[in-house]
Each structure stands twice: as C-alpha cells, then as structure tokens.
C-alpha cells in the first residue's frame, strides 16, 4: 500500500491544474441545456480536445493521452476544483465511449471516437420509453431491417441532452417477435435522420434538458449497429456499468462540491455565529463522505489496474454518489436559509443560485442510471447473494 502519488502522477496533476486555470473561460455561460449554452459548451469541448485534455484516458489515436486510471482521477479532481464549465458531451465520452471501446469495430471506433472527443458530435441517450423505465427490457421501439437500413418506429423519452444532440444512442427491438432481453439491438442514430422528431421537455429547473424522441419510419444504416443484431442487451449492460461505476461520476465532482460547502460554511458562520450547530455536523458528514468516495475509488482503481474487474458492486458506488450529491447540496441550502430558495437571476442569490440548481440536479441522481431501489436490489441479490424470489 502506498497512497502517495508518484512523480509522474504529481507532474500530470500539476500540468492539468496549470493548463485548466490558464484556459478556463472567465465568463459565465448560458446553461448547457439551452440552445445558446449548448453551443458555448461545444466550443469548450474543442478547446479541451486541442490541448489533449478532452479525453486524457483514451488512446492517443483517438485524441487522448493514454493516461492511467489514477491519473484520470487526478485529472477529474483538478477539473472540478478549477470550476471549469461542465462537459456537454458526458453521455458520449463517459457512457457511449467505453461501450464503443468494448463493442465497436475498428471502423466504428475510428468513425465515432475522435468526433466525440473534439465536440463535433455530441450525444444523447435514447433508452427509456414512456412505459419502460426501470423495466428497460420491456421496451417497444422497433427497428426492422430493410436492405442496408433499419427502419425505426417508436418513442423514447427523458433523453438527456436530447434537445440539441447530434447523435443518439438507442436500444431498440430488432426482432419484433421477441420478448424481454432477447431481440434487442444497440443503434447509433444521427439526430438529423428523416423521420426523427424531437420534442424538448423541461426539467425541474426549467431547462429543456430532456427530449422526447419520436421515430416515424426513421432509416438508419446498418453500419451504425453497435455489437451484433440481437446482442443489444449485453452491449447496454456495458454502458450501464459505466453509469454506475467510475466513468460517469469520478470523485473530483463531489470533492470540489464538498470543498465549496466548507468554504460556504466558513462564510456563513462568520456572517451569523448563531448558525444552528447541527449544520456544522452536516458539513462534516458531507465532507467525510466525499473523502470516503475518493478512497473507495482509489481502491477500486488499484484493483482494476491490477487486473481485477468491477461487477455488481458498482451499484454500491451509484447509491453512494447519488446520496452524497444530495447531502452536499441540501446542507448548503440549510445553511443559506431563506436565501436557499433563490435561483439564478435573484440579486441576493449566493453563488448565482448554483446551490439550488445543483440540488435540483442532484435530486435526479437516485432516479437516473437505474433507480436506487433497483441498485439496492442488485447489491442484495448479486453482491450479498439474497434470493431473487
């Protein structure tokens, strides 16, 4: 056991820290789920890419720098600490990307990864349907083979970033007679395909962060099939494990938020020494839990680098970060008291209302990427070994 970072790791961390503080934009952009903000954030993807900082853990040939998992974790820590803009292509880079590495052909990797990395192609996720949420395997959208194309009909919903994304990765039923997990396929669908109609849907905070996507005889070339026809469930599980494990939510995000919470507390207690003492305990718990997530992930990263694999215990991670995110933001709102409810645009809003918007975003955490109830079932059955029925 050696928890010091070695010279290479330290140098790597110093490099990204220096670069990002020199290069992050100074102005506050529009939220990434507005049309304006979406394009502003796309330019940031390009800036990162050109400096080699878009996807540092990817191979060099796709625009990365082949960094190790530990280095990537340090990169994420520095990234979030810097307060740089959010990544508009997270669905691509963190979810579809790793799935492409596992399941994509060489042609597909060459075709999709570089444009994903440089922000030319921003991705949305098209999985849930109105009647298929937790029960994803019940999905009904069909894609029927017709020569070199699939013809898609059906409806997807709650597609994050779906309003303006360039591409959408979908799970569809290619065998219309199939049921449940069989007969599904994983399709990459251009956002400008004829027969694809989007309807933006506003999230709790009012931003059109979702879209409903309607497919009406939408034709997609078979070269956009990821994995074999009918193997969609297996491919999807690769994406799902990215959602639950390290890729989607590196500790840096929560460490930075916990640090900001500590700073906020220092300011709040100075302004009001009579702040209820229970709030300090909440700050302590949030800080400690962010640290716990960090060391959990370092331990898992070591295990992965030593050749291990991350199985169902990834669900522990998803439970933990989703609850931690709420804990951090809820503590801040308590601290802000009557200012807590103020949002961007309110003259008195602390930190431009980021604590409330962060709280609203955090509230979705126990729902997306598999509800926490589902995650608890997975842990109980597959990690602890409790009987399914």
């Amino acid at each position, binding site marked *: 056991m050696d928890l010091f970072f070695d010279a290479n790791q330290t140098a790597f961390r110093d490099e990204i820290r220096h670069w990002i503080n020199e290069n992050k934009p100074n102005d506050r952009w529009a939220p990434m789920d507005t049309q304006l903000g979406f394009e502003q954030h796309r330019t940031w993807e390009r800036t990162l890419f050109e400096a080699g900082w878009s996807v540092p853990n990817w191979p060099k040939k796709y625009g990365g720098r082949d960094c190790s998992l530990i280095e990537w974790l340090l990169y994420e820590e520095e990234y979030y600490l810097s307060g740089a803009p959010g990544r508009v292509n997270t669905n691509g880079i963190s979810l579809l990307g790793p799935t492409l590495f596992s399941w994509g052909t060489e042609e597909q990797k060459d075709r999709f990864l570089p444009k994903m990395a440089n922000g030319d192609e921003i991705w949305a996720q098209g999985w849930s349907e109105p009647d298929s949420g937790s029960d994803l395997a019940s999905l009904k959208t069909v894609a029927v083979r017709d020569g070199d194309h699939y013809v898609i009909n059906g409806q997807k919903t709650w597609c994050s970033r779906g309003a303006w994304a360039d591409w959408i990765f979908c799970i569809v039923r290619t065998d219309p007679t199939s049921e449940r997990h069989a007969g599904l396929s994983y399709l990459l669908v251009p956002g400008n395909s004829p027969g694809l109609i989007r309807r933006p849907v506003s999230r*709790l905070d009012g931003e059109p962060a979702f879209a409903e996507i309607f497919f009406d005889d939408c034709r997609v070339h078979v070269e956009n099939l990821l994995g074999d026809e009918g193997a969609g469930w297996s491919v999807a599980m690769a994406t799902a494990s990215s959602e639950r494990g390290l890729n989607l939510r590196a500790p840096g995000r929560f460490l930075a938020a916990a640090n900001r919470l500590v700073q906020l507390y220092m300011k709040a207690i100075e302004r009001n020494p009579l702040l209820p003492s*229970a709030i300090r305990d909440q700050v302590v718990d949030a800080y400690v839990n962010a640290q716990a997530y960090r060391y959990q992930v370092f331990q898992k990263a070591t295990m992965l680098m030593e050749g291990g694999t991350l199985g169902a215990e990834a669900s522990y991670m998803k439970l933990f970060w989703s609850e931690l995110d709420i804990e951090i933001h809820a503590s801040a709102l308590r601290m802000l008291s009557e200012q807590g409810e103020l949002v961007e645009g309110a003259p008195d809003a602390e930190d431009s209302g980021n604590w409330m918007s962060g709280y609203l975003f955090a509230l979705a955490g126990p*729902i997306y990427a598999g509800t926490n109830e589902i995650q608890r079932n997975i842990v109980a059955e597959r990690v602890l070994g409790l009987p399914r029925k």
Partner: protein
Amino acid sequence: MKFSFKDEQLLFAEATREMLRKDCSPEAINEFVESDSAAMPELWNSFASMGVLGITASETLGGLEMLDQDFVLIMEELGRAACPEPVMEHAVLSIPLLEECNNKSKYTSILKSAINGEHRLSVALESQYVVGADSADYLLLFRDSLLHLVAKESIVLQRQASVDSSRRLFSVKWDTNSGTVIEGDSDKVRSLIEITKLRAEVSTAAQCIGVAQQLLDMTVQYVQERKQFGKPVGVNQAIKHHLADTGKAIEFARPMVYRAAWSLNKGDTEAELAAHMAKLLASKAVDLACKTSLQCHGAIAYTLEYDLQIWLKRGLTLSSSWGDIYRQREKIADCLGL
C-alpha cells in the same frame, strides 16, 4: 379534552377545497406562472366572496372573526392546492396586525377593503423578503423594532426569483422617514410581533401538511397505475415502505399543528413551544413527502410538464419558511431551557 373539529369548521374547509379545485387547478397555476402576472384575480375574488380574506377580522368590520383553530383547516387547504396567492400573509398575518394597532380606527377603510378583497396586504417580520409584494397595495414591515405600514407608491421592489416560480418574492426598500411607522418600539409591539410569528409558524405548518398530503395522494395514485415488470410499481415493498413512512410523518405532525392552533388563542402556557413543535414536525413531514414522492414517481416527476413539480417546489420553500427544522430545534431547545 375533546380533540375534534366542529361540523361548521369542517364544512368551511370542504367548501374552500372545492373552490380551490375549481379556481386554483394546476392548469391555472401554470398559466399564472407563465404569464408572470402578479396575481390571480379570479381566485382572489373567490376567496373574498367566501369570506376567507376576512377570516381573522372582527365582525364589526365585516370579518368572520375566526380563531386559529377555526381556520387552520383552511391553511391546510391552501397547501393542498399549492395556492400561489399570499392568503396567509394577507388574512392571517397582516389584518390582525393592523387591527391590533393603537390607531386602529385610522385604518378602518384599509381593513374593510382588505376584507372585501379590493386591497391586498402583505408582510415581512423577520424575513428580508416579502411574498407577493408586487400585487400588494400596502405592506406591513417590521424593522428596527418599529412596525411600518407602507403604501405601494412608496416602495421600491426588487424581484428575488425563487425556485418556486409561483411564489413571488421581493426585497423592499422605502424611505423610512416618510411617516410610515404605525407602532413604535414598545412591549406591545414586541408581543404583537411575537404572536404574529407564532401564528405564521402554525399556519405555514398547516400548509406544509396540505402539501405533504397532496404529494402523498398523487404518488399513491401514480404507483397504482404505473406498471413495470408487469405489475403496478406500488406492489414493491420499497415503494410501500417509503409511502408508509411518509404517511406516518404526516399523521403525527397534523395533530400537533391543530393543537398549536388551539393553543395560540387559549392562553395555553405552552403555546410558543407548541407552535415551534408544529412547524418542526410539519417541515419534516413535507421534506419526506418531497423526497419519497419524487423517488416513487421516477423521471416523470422531474419535469415541468408533470404537475407534481408544483407541490415539490412549494414543499421545498415552505419547509424553510418561518423556521426550517434546524431553526425550530433551536427555538424548542430555548423553550425547554436546554
């Protein structure tokens, strides 16, 4: 000891609920938010014609002269309907403050027009923000131990956007030398302000209960209808237990709110403690209801298109309003000498 409401109290609450169902539907609330107007005049008129705007006012002025235990059920209905109009601020807080003033007779015409709904009042005692200040004709403002009555012409407003966009919050500025003081620094004004704050805690607690109950009811209905894995999601024990805990929190907060309302007028020596406890438990109940109702709905509740969001946001703001759980615990500890 008889802990139940009279029929006329229950009937008035029921009538209010019916009126709100009609005039304060989710559609009406959403329309109000989108239009960014300052008030919902039709709804306001319905309140006026039912007498709700004068629930606390003396009968000689045309009011209903109700006590807190008479109108606590009305407050609950306001929460259940997520009513955006600041009825509590107007009818429960401002009118009694004005009626208790030394120079009450000077304000007879304001009071009368407040009771019949022509004029609108709002109030700020400890908060920096005034709810519904942009529609108010007069504000009652307590600052530096003085109680002011300020007409809208003398006020500069600044909108403070709230996460609950049906809740219109404002900072207010006015020229404090402009003769607006209606009660000077005195024991009387201090006790008046204290009782008004307690009344605000209890009435807000009742609204929290109404919000929580509505969140629970909507969720119970949804999990009966929504199917996953071939069954209603409500068959899952996790869902059942989330909602059982929510029901329990509401069930045990509600009598404490009623009791606090009763205590406020009855010279109960524990009135202050009762009010603080009521708001603590009601805030806890609505916090839990927000959490479990969102979680049991899943993604659908996370959009503006689904009406649950109206109550989620109202719950979020009312939970903190007039004392969140942390501040209530501090107040209770003080009362108990801890």
